[in-house]
């Protein structure tokens, strides 16, 4: 390619304490080009982009934009040089409107008036040019995730960004929204913008990028033209060895262990509750629940976890209708809970591994007797989890907040699976984990399925749902789709259900 170089990073190195996040990374980006930055979690992708955008200062190395050196540690300089970043965690103020969020910081603080009228006109024009439809007067807090992302992109375009950095942009989108995003990116490239696309979803990278850069443990391990490579080759480069997707063996489906009959629950803040949901979890079967987050998944998982009884309808366990239902009942009925937010509800950050490992069993023998804790028993139990589940840690008395997400999740898996649970609620079990840990968690779930557990897998990642689930339901605005057996629906068809289509006139109680 003989095109103009718009961005050049040279020898970027950054360490956090003992951790080398980036070591000697070189990168060039040409005008009108899309490059993908690939790597597992913790490979250093986000750190690199945060250095480029001025959130961090590199220990060594230089950044050059449009031929001029870029001072580091200064987001304003990056913005002025024409670099726009769409963060993985949106940087939007929820209580402000779309127009306010976009125009924030674009005029001098000391100018007397906020010219929102002019801003709105310009935003509407940009939205039309790039196909980013959004209501400029809406409060950002009321927008869907897809719309928020459009606002983030508009924010960059409004400041005349010539280089767009997108950090895991598709992690929160439905397949249709992803297609729309790609269309916008194609338009942007046609207008001469350059794009850095950060992801670990290989098929998307293959679809959008001209060139791929692969990071592993903070170092650049490969750079290939997309047309000269394959998904398998990229995956191998990312992980460093061959990746085997888990084998899903055919299985004998057993009795119904947990059943919801026409259940409705109240709304939870802005997230809808369940509306007339019927669902049955059978032994030896993984039931996948697909859907965009905030569509009732929280209500369903809270219900099964024992955080509330349904407002209407029945919760049936082993063919007995439950009238009393709280978290302890749930645990004692053999429900294993892998919570959505392992930091917030799954563990207590400043407790050590032993204390966290016995959170569900501390009140009964052998962990305690006649009101006294049996710490040696707790420690032995924890050490057996550490050994069996390969938790990488200094020891059982380490505070759990010092563990990586993957190791924390392994401890949680050990905690719930050691009791041979009959029912497993796995809510986003691999969110934020790298490929190695994901494969491990998936294999553990499949092993539990083989030993006869009924598993409900809640995930926003359609690939994960499609790979593991024996039957799939889609949840949208608190309503549940019919049951789709493995292989009967394509991702695009499920995407339509996720967007709320197909629920009208359907009998949405699963047989």
């Amino acid at each position: 390619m003989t095109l103009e170089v718009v961005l050049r990073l040279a020898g970027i190195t950054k360490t956090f304490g003992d951790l080398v996040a980036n070591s000697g990374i070189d990168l060039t980006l040409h005008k009108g080009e899309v490059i993908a930055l690939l790597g597992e979690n913790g490979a250093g992708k986000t750190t690199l982009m945060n250095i480029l955008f001025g959130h961090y200062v590199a220990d060594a190395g230089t950044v050059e934009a449009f031929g001029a050196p870029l001072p580091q540690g200064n987001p304003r300089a990056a913005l002025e040089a024409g670099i726009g970043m769409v963060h993985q965690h949106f940087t939007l103020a929820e209580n402000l409107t779309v127009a306010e969020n976009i125009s924030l910081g674009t005029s001098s603080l000391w100018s007397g008036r906020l010219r929102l009228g002019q801003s709105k006109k310009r935003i509407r024009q940009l939205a039309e040019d790039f196909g980013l439809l959004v209501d400029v007067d809406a409060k950002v807090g009321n927008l869907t995730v897809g719309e928020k992302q459009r606002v983030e992109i508009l924010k960059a375009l409004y400041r005349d960004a010539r280089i767009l950095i997108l950090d895991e942009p598709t992690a929160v989108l439905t397949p249709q929204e992803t297609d729309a995003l790609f269309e916008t990116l194609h338009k942007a490239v046609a207008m001469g913008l350059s794009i850095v696309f950060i992801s670990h979803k290989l098929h998307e990278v293959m679809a959008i990028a001209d060139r791929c850069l692969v990071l592993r443990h903070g170092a650049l391990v490969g750079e290939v033209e997309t047309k000269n490579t394959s998904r398998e080759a990229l995956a191998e480069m990312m992980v460093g060895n061959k990746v085997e997707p888990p084998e899903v063996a055919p299985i004998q489906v057993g009795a119904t262990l947990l059943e919801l009959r026409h259940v409705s629950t109240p709304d939870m803040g802005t997230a809808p509750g369940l509306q007339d949901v019927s669902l049955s979890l059978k032994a030896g079967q993984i039931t996948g629940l697909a859907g965009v987050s905030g569509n009732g998944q929280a209500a369903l998982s809270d219900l099964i976890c024992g955080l509330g009884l349904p407002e209407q309808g029945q919760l049936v366990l082993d063919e007995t209708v439950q009238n009393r239902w709280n978290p302890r009942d749930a645990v004692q009925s053999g429900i294993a809970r892998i919570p959505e937010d392992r930091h917030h509800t799954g563990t207590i950050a400043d407790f050590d591994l032993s204390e966290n490992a016995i959170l569900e069993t501390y009140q009964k023998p052998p962990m305690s007797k006649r009101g006294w804790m049996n710490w040696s028993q707790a420690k032995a139990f924890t050490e057996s989890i550490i050994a069996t589940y390969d938790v990488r840690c200094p020891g059982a008395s380490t505070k759990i907040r010092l563990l990586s997400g993957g190791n924390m999740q392994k401890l949680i898996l050990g905690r719930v699976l050691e009791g041979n649970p009959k029912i497993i609620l796995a809510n986003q079990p691999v969110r934020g984990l790298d490929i190695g840990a994901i494969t491990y968690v998936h294999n553990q779930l499949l092993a539990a399925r083989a030993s006869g557990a009924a598993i409900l897998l809640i995930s926003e990642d359609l690939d994960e749902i499609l790979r593991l689930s024996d039957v799939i339901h889609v949840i949208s605005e608190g309503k549940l789709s019919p049951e789709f057996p493995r292989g009967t629906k394509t991702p695009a068809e499920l995407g339509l259900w996720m967007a709320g289509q197909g629920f009208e006139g359907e009998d949405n109680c699963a047989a």
Partner: protein
Amino acid sequence: MMEIFDILLSASFWAAAVRIASPLIFATIGEIICERAGVLNLGIEGIMVVGAFAGWMAVYQGAPLWFGVSVAMCAGMLFGLIHATLTVPFGLSQHVVGLGVTLLATSSSYFTYRLILPKVPSPPKIEPFQPIEIPILSDIPLIGEALFHQTAMTYGAFLLAIIVAIVLYRTPLGLAVRSVGENPAAADAQGLSVTGLRMGAVMVGSGFMAVGGSFLTLSAFDTFLFEMVNGRGWICIALVVFGAWQPGKAVLGALLYAAFDAFQIRLQQTSIGSDIPYQVFLMMPYVLSILALIIMSRRAEIPAALMIPFRKGER
């Protein structure tokens, strides 16, 4: 019952309500500025004491009244700077720092008072602001005397509320201040200085709190007494919530609270008052404040980043 109507129909009752509301409006507006930028300023009570003392002492030493107000403003901003330095760049607990600033500000005011005036038998007096009648408007019955026969500082309080509302909602500066209170990461990503905006907001807000304090010594009364702020700062914290962090609603809240206060003083002097212990009357404005808070603040939108320190480069 007739006595109650007599109170409600007397111009002096409404004039008193507006007068009692004035210092609350200054301080509440100041607190709104701090909280909109994401900093809870519990230094308010002490900063009001400092304002009351510094403004009064400047005038007692011979300065003009408006100069006294400026001195109060500067003293407030100084304590605001202490608060902001500890809570914004250092990111310390806003509760602890706020209470610390209140204790420091209160006791250093009393200490300085005793240093300068070691042996005064009774607190010395100054010549305070006098009411100004606005021509024509002050002739309107009832409303005229209540609203347009007040001191310049009272007019200033209402003017300030209007100006702050305009700045917050109609200028880029106001948008920037609100954004650091909602999501500092968003402001940072747009190239704004979160530290600068928050420190500036806390200092200016603290300045207005001190002006509210100086109203007590330079306009409502003519001398400085220990304990004269008497919890007004804490009332203002509640008024911010009552006003849902909006200057206009906060002014209404201050007027409502002041009306209850003025009403209970007058009710004590009626025949009803002779049968009931006076403490019950003193309690009234607080009880009604709590009730009003319960009703009003349920749908309020709290600045999302209130009390959350911002550290660059952290998630």
